[in-house]
């Protein structure tokens, strides 16, 4: 019996169209737009000016606090301007436009593909290097990694979990990374174990990626303390709390952090970035992005420089199909539709999903029939139908008592609702309001 989390969960059709496609390197674009906010936390401050010549890997925006990161140039060339431009939500965000000239990297970056296993840094040095390299959680949450690696006082991590679950349908970027960079990921895992001073690490992989499980299980034998755990495929297993429950059987207390049960979770993409940052001296300025969709001619996995326009990725995958209804940044369950294909790829973009018109539109919603399907699929054990009504009626104190803040926004409730009710929309609204109320109370 394979391990999995106990409460709720759904299993949408997987549609992993690009699972067998090797990671291709996308040609460097002519111009990039690198937003200064690509993470959760304080915006970084730009340290270049218009007209400056930058090299690939050079810091162009410095972190402005502890919960913030550096941002590095993904290309070499001239800074065209520092201006506002719409991000995926349509609201303009400050960013740096760079016109590409050649591809000159910083000298200290090791560009060879060779595997470097040995390292002699101690824990705090690794954390500092991660902080300098601008690494954030690359599963989509974009939380600065160095913050996670420093546990709050009095708490100690016991186990490091590497998230190779990739439970979102369609997406295959983590899968391909595990297939092609298995050794690098294992070395990266060891680096993180050292950084946090833990003895054990487990890589959780869903059962729909047998190749990756086999490969990593074979290789993990040569690395001390790392094990691979095969998991039953169920969405949202890639959620931090669900993964901890599935692998260790421990339950993160309501409102608590994973560290409360001695666990820290990192995505395989993040681990790979850590490997590159420390062993190759290469800051985070490119990532693997899946471009996929049922009508896309050539679903692929690309290695993309941060700041490349989404349209270039779509073009490389065979162009935008005529009957496109929505372009989604991320997966179909948790991703967000973007307003135009001009928005850039950021550190948190795991995939670009193109949905045909026939599937894109939501159906008109009807009354709740109290079937309680949403209750049975909620992985956090909440009552989504009730939280939706509370959001609709703006009864926020009750919503807080019903633990609205525990919602991980996985969308299982909206997915399963037979009346097509926009449950998650209202829960998000309620969460935003309750969050604001809690913040003002603290002040």
């Amino acid at each position: 019996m394979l391990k999995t989390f106990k409460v709720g969960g759904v299993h949408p059709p997987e549609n992993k169209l690009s699972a067998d496609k090797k990671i291709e390197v996308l040609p460097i674009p002519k111009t990039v737009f690198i937003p200064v906010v690509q993470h959760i936390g304080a915006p970084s401050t730009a340290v270049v000016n218009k007209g400056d010549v930058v090299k690939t890997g050079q810091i162009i925006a410095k972190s402005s606090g502890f919960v913030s990161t550096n941002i590095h140039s993904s290309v070499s060339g001239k800074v065209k301007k520092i201006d506002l431009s719409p991000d995926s939500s349509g609201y303009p965000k400050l960013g740096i436009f760079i016109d590409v000239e050649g591809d000159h990297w910083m000298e200290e970056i090791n560009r060879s593909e060779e595997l470097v296993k040995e390292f002699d840094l101690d824990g705090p040095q690794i954390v500092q290097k991660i902080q300098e390299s601008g690494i954030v959680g690359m599963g989509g949450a974009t939380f600065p990694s160095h913050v996670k690696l420093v546990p709050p006082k009095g708490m100690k991590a016991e186990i490091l979990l590497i998230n190779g679950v990739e439970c979102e349908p369609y997406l295959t970027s983590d899968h391909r990374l595990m297939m092609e960079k298995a050794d690098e990921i294992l070395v990266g895992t060891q680096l993180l174990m050292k950084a946090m001073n833990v003895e054990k690490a487990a890589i959780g992989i869903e059962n729909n990626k047998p190749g990756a499980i086999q490969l990593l299980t074979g290789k993990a034998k040569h690395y001390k303390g790392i094990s691979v755990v095969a998991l039953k495929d169920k969405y949202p297993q890639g959620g931090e709390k669900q993964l901890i429950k599935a692998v260790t059987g421990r339950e993160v207390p309501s409102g608590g952090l994973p560290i409360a049960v001695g666990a820290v979770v990192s995505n395989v993409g993040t681990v790979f970035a850590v490997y590159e940052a420390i062993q190759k001296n290469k800051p985070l300025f490119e990532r693997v992005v899946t471009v996929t969709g049922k009508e896309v001619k050539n679903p692929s996995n690309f290695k993309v420089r941060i700041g490349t326009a989404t349209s270039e990725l779509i073009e490389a995958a065979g162009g935008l199909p005529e009957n496109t209804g929505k372009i989604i940044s991320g997966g179909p369950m948790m991703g967000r539709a973007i307003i135009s294909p001009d928005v850039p790829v950021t550190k948190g973009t795991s995939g670009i999903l193109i949905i045909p018109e026939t599937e894109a539109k939501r159906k008109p919603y009807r009354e709740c029939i109290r079937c309680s399907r949403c209750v049975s699929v909620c992985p956090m054990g909440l009552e989504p139908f009730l939280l939706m009504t509370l959001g609709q009626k703006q009864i926020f104190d009750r919503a807080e008592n019903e633990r609205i803040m525990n919602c991980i926004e996985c969308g299982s409730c909206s997915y399963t609702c037979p009346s097509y009710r926009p449950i998650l929309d209202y829960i998000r609204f309620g969460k935003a309001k309750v969050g604001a109320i809690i913040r003002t109370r603290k002040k």
Partner: protein
Amino acid sequence: MSLTVIYTIATLSVIGTSAAVILYFVAQKFKVYEDPRIDETEKALPGANCGGCGFAGCRAFAEACVKADSLSDLNCPVGGNETMGSVAGILGFEAHKKDPRVAFIRCNGTCNHRPKTSNFDGASTCAIAASVYSGETDCQWGCVSYGDCYYSCKFDAIDIRAGIGVPLILDDKCVACGACVEACPKNLIELRKQFPKIRKVVVACRNEDKGGVARKACSVACIGCGKCEKECKFDAITIANNLAFIDSDKCKLCRKCVPVCPTNAIIEEGFPPRKIVTEEKQECSTT
């Protein structure tokens, strides 16, 4: 009459009388004195419980009026000067006259001015639409037109104008309670001074983008050029963040700013026509 009946009546009368006596003394002991003027004041108020005064309802407002030292900071926008006059009469205060106000939606981005560039099919409330993304048009400041203001209005003073893209405030019904001001997630609605015959001269735009960007998104956007500011002799117009704003307390309704506006962002309402204006019929193609 049988003895049982007499006993029953007697017992009940004794219990009843003693309970009445106890209750009388308890009521005396725990009596809460309430100013009779509160009831009187409450009767003079409109009784809409709209919250426009800033209190939980008319009763709470009446209590506040009775407790207050003067009525200068208290105002019932629904009843206006007439109601506040009678409240002042009841409480023996001096009446403070306040300019009546009227709500105005500072966006004229109807669909023939501001074309749609994307479609939103989530939950149809403005609050959610605005939190998810910038809106169906390229203007991130303007009306998202799902009618949160319409649903917040307790006086039927907002016409949602389905399909046109921006709701309309019916000036004769608006009491300036401010419910719609709070409901609008884009902060479009302003309570402006109400002039005779509900005349107004307003910048119907909230777009703080640079001129070019604003104009591209909407043909009647304010581009912050500053022509109106120069034209105004009463210092009523200020330009901030690429956006003009007419202070209704300083405006004298001279209407000189209206013709100089290059984008027709300033609108006048309630005046006799200057010249023959052909009415454009506004209709939206539903996508």
